[in-house]
Every structure is written in structure tokens, then in C-alpha cells.
């Protein structure tokens, strides 16, 4: 186990210690202890940067279940390290922020909070560094679990529980589909190692399981990354404490799906299915999210839909980037891998500005007591630092220079425009959709950014609507967003800081084999491209976005605009209701509580199964040639037996019925006599005698048989079922008889006949078999009798009233 393994497991270890720290070190806020860990890990990961940027990778193995090919292998390359840095870096800031956000040590159950948070952090690190798909899946589900726990942190609130359940159901079902996808990948390649799977990409592409595997894996990625139509859990997850929203639902967990798509692009990316599904769903999510965001009245809801939209953007770019596999870089240059570059760059940018915006919203909520933009306004003068940070974050999100959002959005436009020049996958005709949708979505993005910002910080201050005395936040709450906002500015002004160190190696892991050996991606991000289409698109975005914002009052009259909830929630809520009602109905239909119904189910099943088997294998046969002579005794006995049996259901007197049953027993004893089984006959006679005595004793106290009134249909069903059972058993017996004559098997009774006297010294073969050859059976049967007798004693002597302390 290498240091890297310990690094991944460290959060889990610390999570075990957190409750003790919380309980025994009361005077210090538990968060301070927790913060050390992500900070240390962040610094530790930073050390890898020089090595990774040289194009090297680290691979550490740790066998776990080697017989199943499941190992805890850790693989660090550009993509993994990028995520590792995001997780630990933003993790540190979020923990710091949470120390001031959940400042009340007595009221908040901090031990829960930090245990869940650390569990999440460890799981997330596991997801991004695992080389083994099964290990990845385990960590993946752990993130879902931790996320649900964090959403329901204030579990006394009904909305929190609803949100947690929803996110759990959606992400776990996606994760489960993903597991199936991983299994299919294993079937195709016989390995769970991602690197080995990538090496066998050509095998996978030609396999018939390719499409199902791809769809299943994408189901996992899309549910986690809140892509349409699985995005509905994210707005409801906003019930979580704001540090959680900032960490999980903007920077890390929702990017797990992005990570997976990026990681598996070399496996699936070569096909047009992947290209169209990933970029299609992405671009649709982009516009759906940005249009939905503008309808929201809650700051966190705006940010949630904004996150959805931006994730869609990154997803679309990853899809478009996969086209690079089809072109020779030497010929077309950087044209088609710009999309991947934009995806990676925007991934980083989004984490910085969205993280800071969430924290700002948390501050606003914390200081004013509301997140409703209808109540807020004019906070600029009261909260100047918050205002400044928010301004930077919002402008970056809206894509205004000189912030990093502008750069990544320009690149996004470039990639979308490049898509129209592709000559594959029908892109000549459909390709024009990409820049158009991208542009419209950006207009809405701009509009909701301005809306959110101006409604909170500009305008008139409305203290009468607020419950608290408003003032600037404490410095501890402000540091994390300030750090993130400065990153926004730094990355905006000096984007090439990132380019060489992390973006290039990340692109190399998403698009391997695109470049010739020894070459590397050369990324140079700069602000000024001259007067090109992208610039005019941005100017258009600003103009039209402002127009939308200025005319919001008119928009507000449109009915559609007033609806805050996503219409897809209706589908989700109702499908839950339908599922519950449907299963109740199905259960009530079969679980009647009546034994006779269950008996009918069982017998009908037996009839069906045996009948089907007989017909399917055509094994019905009658063999009259080998039937023994029927003696007159047997004939008479059988007739009487049949008559008594048929009579039995019509007897309405209990004692008569018992006697009739006795008659059947004695007739069977006679049959044994006729068939020369004296021991059996004796036993049958005696058992029947004892049985009748027992019956009479037991039934003496019972009331007279009641005549039940049955509907004719019920009677008919019973008749049909009874006849069916009789018929099937008879046919089976006949066929078995015919079959045994057609395929004679040496009976073992010959052995007993020969050896019972010689080996066991007895002439009564039946008894010798019972006590000698097969003594164990006899012993256990006697044991059964003993248990039955003791059962009777217990039933009768121990009359419990239900009040005993047993």
C-alpha cells in the first residue's frame, strides 16, 4: 500500500476520529481539525504538478480481490490530478467557510457534518484516482450516500428529507446502471482496469455490447452530473447547508459525471453515438438550465440551475471534443481539440466562480435571513466585500472580460463554430445547431447573472422585509470566497499559468493517441483574438442579455415564466406515487390473506409448470403393454376407495367425515395386503386407528361443520384446479411408468433381497432395511414423531395469554 492509497483513505480515517474530537475537545470548533487534512492533501498533490506536466503518470497497485480482478489500483495522470486538486483545494476552503457558517457549536451537530463531509471527500478522491472500475463504482456510490446524508443534514426539515431522497434515488439508480455498464465492459475486455480497457478500445467498438455498455455508463454519468432529464435532483439538493452546496453541488460531486465521461472518452469516443449523445444532451441541458434559472426567485435555486446549465456546457464540449479522434492533427491543427481544451478550462473556471458564488449566497442568507430575491436589494453599501466578490463571480459566470469565464466562453464559441466545419456524423447539416443554441443559452446565462446580482446588491435596500439587522459578514466567512474570486481574476489575467501545468496533461489523458508519440498538446490561451465571430457573438450576448433583463417585467406576465418548479418534477413525483400505488394494488391483489387462495396459486403453478414441461419436451407416454394383471380384489377395493373419496366433500357432519377418512385408511391397508406388504398393512391399520382416535379427541370440541356459501365461480375454479392437479399427477405417473419400462434401470432391491440375511441376519427384508441398511432414516423419523408429540404438549400445556415475559 503506497502513500497515495493512504492519502485516499485518510479522510475516512479522520472521519472515525471526528466524533471523539467533537466530544472531548469542546472548546475548539471541530472544523479546525478537519481543515488540516484537505490542506495537507492539497499541498501533497501540488508536488505532483511538475511531474504530471512533464507527461509522466503514477500507477500504484494494491490487490483487493484479485480473483475477481477487483483491485484498489491508483492511477494519477493529468485528469485525476486536476480533480484531486479541485477536491482538496475547494475542500479546504469549504471547511474553513463551514467553521464560520455553522458557528454555533451547541446547536449544530458538527460531528455528523464533518463525518459526512470527510466521507464524501475520501470517496471523491477514490473516484478520481481509481484505475479499477469496481473500486471506482464503490467510491461513486459512497459519494451518493454521503451527498444524501449531507443534503438531509437538517433532517427535521421535510424539504431536506425530500431532497435527500430524490438525489439518492436518482443518483443511485444511475450508479446502478453504471455498474451494469462496467460489467459489460468487463465482459468485452476481461479486465476492470481503465487503462487496459482503453488499450482494448478497438475490441470494444466492434463488440455488439458496445451500445448497451455506453448507454448504461452514460446513465450513471448523466444522473450524477445533473444532465437533462436527470437534473431535477440538483435544485432540491439546495436544502443542504450552503458549504455543502458549494462543495458538492457546484465544484466536485456533480463533476464526477464529467470526470467519468472524460475518463472514458478514449473508450467510447470514437463512435458517432457517443458524440451525439454526449454533446446533444449537454447542449440541451445547457439551454434548459439557463432558461430555467431565469425563472427562479431563490438565489440558491438560480445557482442550481446555473450549475446544471454549465455542466451541460462542459458535457457538450466533451462530446464535441471526441471528434478529434477522427482527424489528423497534423492536417487540421488544433481545430477539433479546442472543444476538449475549453471543457477542461471551463471545468476549472466553473469550480472557482461557482464555489465563490455559492459562498456569497450563503453569506447573504446568513446575514439577511433570506435568499429570496424579491426581499433582497441594495446590499452593495452594507456588504461591500461580499458585493465585490459577488461582482467578480457573476461577471465571470456571465462571460465578461477580463475574468476567466470570458476566456472559457470564447473557447466554447470557437468549439461550437468549429463543429459546423466537421464533415462527419451529419454535422454538415445539424452542426449549425451548436453555435445557435450555445449563443441563445449564453444570452440567458448573461441575463440571469445580471438579474441575480442586481436584485441582491443593487436597487433599494428593504430592511422592513428582513428579519435581521444586516451587516458585513465576519472575515472568516469572507476568506474562502475571496480566495476563489482572486483565483477567478488570476486565471482570467494569466490563463497560461494553468495551461502548461495542468490543462495540457489533462487533455492528454482525455485524448490519448490523437497526437503522435513524443508530441504534446500546446495550449496558449490569450484574450485578444482580433475581430472574429466569437467576439461578435459575445457582444450580441451582452446586448440581448441586457435586453432580456431590462424587459423582465414584461416577461413576468407570461404564465410559463412564473412557474419556478421544473416541469419534469411532475414526472418524478407522480412516478413515485404510481410506483407505490401500483405495488399496493399488485400486492393486495395476490396477498389476500386467505390460505385457500395461496393454495390455489401454488397448485395452479404446479399444474402450469408440469404441464408446460410435459408439452415442451413431449414426454407424455402411456405404456399399456407392461401393465400388471388387475385382480378382482384390487378392482373392488379401488371402486370402494373411489366412492368414499368422491363422497367425502359432500359430508356435512364432522364425525362422519372422520369416519369416512378412516375408511379410506383401512381400504388402503387392505390394498397393502393385496399387494403383499404385511408390515405396511399392519402399520397402516394401527396408525389409522390411532389417527381416528386422535381426530375424534381433537374435533370433539369443534363446532359443527358450517356450510359456506360459495359463488359458482369460486366452486368452478376449485373444481378446475382440483381436476387439473389430479390430471397432471396421473399423467406424470403414467409417463413415468412408461418411461421406466422404456429405459429400465436396475433396481437396488435385488441387492437387499440377496443380502439381507447374509449381511444383517434377518429374514424380514423390510425391517432389515428399516433398522440396518437405512437405520438413519428410521432414527430421524422417530425423532420427527418425538418432536410432534412434544409440540402437542407445548401447544396444550403452555397457554400463553400474551402478557408473559418470554
Amino acid at each position, binding site marked *: 500500500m503506497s502513500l497515495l492509497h493512504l492519502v485516499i483513505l485518510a479522510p475516512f480515517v479522520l472521519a472515525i476520529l471526528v466524533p471523539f474530537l467533537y466530544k472531548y475537545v469542546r472548546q475548539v470548533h471541530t472544523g479546525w481539525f478537519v481543515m488540516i487534512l484537505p490542506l495537507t492533501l492539497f499541498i501533497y498533490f501540488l508536488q505532483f504538478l511538475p511531474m504530471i506536466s512533464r507527461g509522466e503518470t503514477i500507477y500504484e497497485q494494491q490487490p483487493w480481490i484479485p480473483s475477481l480482478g477487483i483491485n484498489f489500483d491508483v492511477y494519477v495522470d493529468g485528469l485525476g490530478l486536476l480533480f484531486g486538486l479541485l477536491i482538496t483545494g475547494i475542500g479546504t476552503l469549504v471547511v474553513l467557510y463551514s467553521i464560520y457558517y455553522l458557528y454555533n457549536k451547541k446547536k449544530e451537530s458538527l460531528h455528523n457534518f464533518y463525518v459526512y463531509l470527510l466521507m464524501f471527500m475520501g470517496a471523491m478522491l477514490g473516484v478520481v484516482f481509481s484505475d479499477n472500475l469496481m473500486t471506482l463504482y464503490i467510491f461513486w456510490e459512497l459519494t451518493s450516500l454521503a451527498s444524501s446524508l449531507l443534503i438531509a443534514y437538517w433532517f427535521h426539515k421535510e424539504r431536506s428529507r425530500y431532497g435527500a431522497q430524490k438525489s439518492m434515488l436518482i443518483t443511485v439508480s444511475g450508479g446502478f446502471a453504471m455498474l451494469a455498464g462496467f460489467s459489460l465492459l468487463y465482459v468485452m475486455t476481461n479486465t476492470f482496469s481503465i487503462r487496459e480497457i482503453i488499450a482494448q478500445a478497438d475490441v470494444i467498438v466492434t463488440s455488439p455490447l458496445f451500445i448497451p455498455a455506453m448507454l448504461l455508463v452514460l446513465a450513471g454519468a448523466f444522473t450524477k452530473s445533473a444532465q437533462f432529464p436527470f437534473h431535477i435532483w440538483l435544485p432540491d439538493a439546495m436544502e443542504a447547508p450552503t458549504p455543502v452546496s458549494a462543495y458538492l453541488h457546484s465544484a466536485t460531486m456533480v463533476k464526477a459525471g464529467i470526470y467519468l465521461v472524460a475518463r472514458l472518452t478514449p473508450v467510447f469516443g470514437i463512435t458517432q453515438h457517443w458524440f451525439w449523445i454526449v454533446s446533444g444532451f449537454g447542449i440541451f441541458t445547457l439551454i434548459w438550465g439557463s432558461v430555467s434559472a431565469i425563472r427562479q426567485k431563490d438565489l440558491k435555486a438560480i445557482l442550481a440551475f446555473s450549475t446544471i446549465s454549465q455542466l451541460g456546457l462542459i458535457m457538450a464540449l466533451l462530446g464535441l471534443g471526441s471528434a478529434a479522434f477522427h482527424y489528423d492533427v497534423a492536417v487540421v491543427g488544433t481545430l477539433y481539440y479546442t472543444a476538449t481544451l475549453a471543457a477542461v478550462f471551463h471545468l476549472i473556471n466553473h469550480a472557482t466562480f461557482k464555489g465563490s458564488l455559492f459562498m456569497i449566497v450563503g453569506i447573504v442568507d446568513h446575514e439577511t435571513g433570506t435568499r429570496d430575491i424579491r426581499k433582497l436589494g441594495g446590499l452593495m453599501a452594507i456588504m461591500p466585500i461580499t458585493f465585490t466578490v459577488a461582482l467578480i463571480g457573476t461577471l465571470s459566470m456571465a462571460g465578461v472580460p477580463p475574468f476567466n469565464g470570458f476566456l472559457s466562453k470564447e473557447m466554447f464559441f470557437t468549439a461550437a463554430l468549429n463543429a459546423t466545419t466537421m464533415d462527419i456524423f451529419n454535422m454538415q447539416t445539424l452542426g449549425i445547431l451548436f453555435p445557435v443554441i450555445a449563443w441563445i443559452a449564453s444570452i440567458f446565462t448573461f441575463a440571469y447573472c445580471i438579474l441575480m446580482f442586481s436584485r441582491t446588491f443593487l436597487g433599494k435596500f428593504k430592511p422592513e422585509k428582513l428579519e435581521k439587522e444586516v451587516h458585513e459578514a465576519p472575515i472568516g466567512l469572507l476568506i474562502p470566497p475571496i480566495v476563489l474570486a482572486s483565483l477567478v481574476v488570476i486565471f482570467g489575467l494569466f490563463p497560461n499559468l494553468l495551461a502548461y501545468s495542468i490543462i495540457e496533461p489533462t487533455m492528454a489523458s482525455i485524448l490519448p493517441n490523437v497526437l503522435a508519440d513524443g508530441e504534446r498538446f500546446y495550449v496558449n490561451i490569450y484574450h485578444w483574438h482580433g475581430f472574429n465571430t466569437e467576439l461578435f457573438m459575445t457582444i450580441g450576448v451582452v446586448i440581448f442579455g441586457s435586453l432580456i433583463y431590462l424587459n423582465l417585467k414584461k416577461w413576468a406576465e407570461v404564465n410559463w415564466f412564473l412557474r419556478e418548479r421544473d416541469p419534469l418534477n411532475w414526472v418524478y413525483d407522480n412516478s413515485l406515487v404510481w410506483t407505490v400505488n401500483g405495488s399496493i394494488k399488485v400486492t393486495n391483489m395476490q396477498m389476500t390473506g386467505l390460505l385457500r387462495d395461496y393454495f390455489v396459486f401454488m397448485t395452479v403453478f404446479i399444474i402450469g409448470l408440469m404441464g408446460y414441461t410435459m408439452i415442451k419436451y413431449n414426454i407424455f407416454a402411456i405404456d399399456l403393454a407392461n401393465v400388471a394383471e388387475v385382480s378382482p380384489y384390487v378392482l373392488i377395493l379401488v371402486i370402494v376407495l373411489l366412492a368414499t373419496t368422491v363422497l367425502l366433500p359432500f359430508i356435512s357432519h364432522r364425525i362422519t367425515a372422520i369416519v369416512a377418512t378412516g375408511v379410506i385408511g383401512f381400504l388402503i391397508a387392505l390394498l397393502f395386503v393385496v399387494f403383499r406388504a404385511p408390515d405396511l398393512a*399392519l*402399520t397402516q391399520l394401527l396408525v389409522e386407528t*390411532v389417527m381416528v382416535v386422535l381426530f375424534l379427541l381433537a374435533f370433539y370440541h369443534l363446532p359443527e361443520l358450517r356450510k359456506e356459501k360459495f359463488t359458482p365461480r369460486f366452486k368452478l375454479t376449485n373444481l378446475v384446479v382440483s381436476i387439473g392437479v389430479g390430471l397432471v399427477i396421473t399423467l406424470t405417473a403414467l409417463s413415468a411408468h412408461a418411461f421406466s419400462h422404456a429405459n429400465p434401470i436396475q433396481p437396488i432391491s435385488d441387492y437387499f433381497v440377496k443380502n439381507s440375511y447374509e449381511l*444383517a441376519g434377518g429374514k424380514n427384508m423390510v*425391517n432389515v432395511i428399516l433398522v440396518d441398511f437405512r437405520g438413519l432414516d428410521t432414527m430421524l423419523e*422417530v425423532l420427527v414423531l*418425538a418432536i410432534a*408429540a412434544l409440540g*402437542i404438549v407445548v401447544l396444550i400445556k403452555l397457554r400463553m395469554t400474551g402478557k408473559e415475559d418470554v
Partner: protein
Amino acid sequence: MKSSLMLHTITRIVAFIILSFSVFLFFAGHNNPGGGFIGGLMTAAGLLLLYVSFDLKTIKRVIPFNYTTMIATGMLLAIGTGVVSMFLGDAYLTQYFDYFQLPILGETELTTALPFDLGIYLVVVGVALLSILTIAEDDA
């Protein structure tokens, strides 16, 4: 009970016949129809006759058997016979037999199947009577 003199008298005779017959069945098992199971049931039937013709208390005084103990003894006997063969190095429940010259009976075959059968006999008698008497005594 009224006018049960006939019944009592006949029972006294018949019960002994039945019981002796049951003992015969038990011993005959090895070479003729019979054995522990049938013998046990027959004994139970004989004892039942006693219980039916006299009242429960009387018979309990005369035959002070504890049927639960009888079942346990029978089980132990059956299981124990099997264990013996394990001590001799054979499989569980291996039965042995040989012919011996006994004082009165002359040459007799003795077999370990007999104690095993006796165990079964005891369990069957115990089970039949225990269940019937428990139900019969129950007046709740």
C-alpha cells in the same frame, strides 16, 4: 361409570393379550412381519384400551409411566446403538449380529438391531400415548 363390569373384565383379559401380542410383534420383527414401530403402536393401542375403559387417574396410578421420559430414553437408546459402532471403528449405525448359545433359548441370534428397535418401540409408545393423553386431559 355405570354397568362397566363387562367392559372392565374383558379389558383385563384382552389388554394382556394385546400387550403380549405387541411384545411378540416386536421380537418377530427381524424375521417376520413386525418390529419396533408396529409393536410400539400395538402396545399403545393396548394401553389406550385400558385408559378408555378405566378412567385416566386409575390407570395413571397403576402404570406410572412418564411418557416424556420414555420418548427421551427411546431416542437415547436408538442414537446410542449407533454410537457404539463408532467406538469399534465402523460407520455410525453399523449393526452387528452373531449366534450365541443361551441357557434356555438354545442357539439364538443376537443383533444390535434389537436395542435400536427397542428405542424406536419406546419412542412410538411414548409419542402415541403422550399426544392422546395430553389432548384428552385438556379441559380448557
